[in-house]
């Protein structure tokens, strides 16, 4: 996905949030619903459950679109967090202790700033490039964390690695991704 596509999706969510634009919603449905369904099935949901939850995720998008802020996250990232949370709630039946990063009371004034001015469509494009360039053993562990939903101790066991090695690969990978986003060196 290029910067233009990310910006298009952001604009569609904003249109839904501002004007309940149903044409924009249908375009978002066409893009996201099959991907959310794929994500849920990849994590073990059956076809029917994944379809239902993908519908719920789209309904959540419709209802919360006015809260979407493209300065904080891309539409894809926002949609990922919606799908992740629905899945934890509906399939794992756990609560999701959620931090609302938009809650101003939580943000000490001096520490705000740099983030807000980031253009997320571009930042995530750089992130994509950095992900593609990660050494294979680091990329593998990042992907397992998102798509296997195993604790890192279990990932370590399955890969036949000491837990410390898994942790250090994660640290290296996360440091590279943050560098790509330009906010920490």
């Amino acid at each position: 996905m290029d910067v233009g596509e990310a910006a298009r999706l952001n604009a569609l969510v904003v249109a839904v949030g501002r004007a309940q634009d149903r044409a924009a919603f249908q375009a978002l449905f066409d893009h996201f619903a099959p991907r959310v369904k794929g994500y849920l099935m990849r994590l073990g949901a059956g076809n029917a459950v994944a379809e239902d939850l993908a519908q719920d995720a789209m309904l959540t998008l419709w209802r919360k679109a006015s809260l979407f802020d493209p300065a904080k996250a891309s539409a894809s990232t926002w949609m990922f967090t919606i799908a992740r949370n629905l899945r934890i709630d509906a399939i794992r039946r756990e609560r999701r202790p959620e931090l609302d990063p938009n809650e101003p009371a939580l943000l000490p004034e001096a520490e705000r700033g740099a983030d807000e001015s980031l253009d997320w469509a571009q930042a995530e494009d750089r992130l994509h490039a950095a992900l593609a360039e990660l050494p294979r053993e680091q990329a593998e562990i990042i992907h397992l964390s998102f798509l296997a939903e195993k604790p890192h101790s279990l990932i370590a066991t399955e890969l036949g690695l000491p837990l410390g090695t898994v942790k250090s690969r994660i640290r290296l990978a996360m440091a590279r991704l943050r560098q790509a986003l330009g906010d920490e060196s």
Partner: protein
Amino acid sequence: MSIAHHPGDELLLSYASGAANEAVALLVASHATFCAQCRARVQRAEATGGRVLTDMAPVPMSAQAYESLLARLDEPARAVVQAAHLQSDVPAPLQAYIGTDYGALPWRHVGGGISHLPIRTRGGMRARLIRAEPGSGVYTHTHKGEEWTLVLTGSYTDKTGHYAAGDVQSTTPEISHQPTADAGPVCINLAVTDAPLVFRGLLPKLVAKFHGF
């Protein structure tokens, strides 16, 4: 407020990806209310999730999926979750579990200025609050698994360092430590373990068994 001890990247990543169980998620989200750096790091990791979703091979929705969704768009939404009390010193994510006042909790006294309170979470790990009067020490203990402790109020010291409000201490199975609450405000911690604590000595063992540590 400056935080000296943060959760490791592996914890932030597992919180962002959704792989973390509820107890770990509670600890990370609560730490993040103290820590702008970790809030930003979680957002970065979530952006990775956005990439994962973008790259996901699409699985077609059924033919009627969009039509049946349209019929639901005008349904009233469920009631919104109650907003957090910002005046409270209990971190917002923790308020859903214990309310807004540490003083009003049914603390279970363990002895020696220490009380605790299990927090009900699902997903396999144990979360509980530990309350230590100034100068009191938790028994020397080791762990069968990993343990994470988030300081909520006050501070404590052990042989590895000093931990104040907002700090997270990560300990591994091989570490035996005896945290002692510093002088000053009562020290309240959120502790998450993936296995029961192993107390050293007979008396602590009996106490631990009795109190369900």
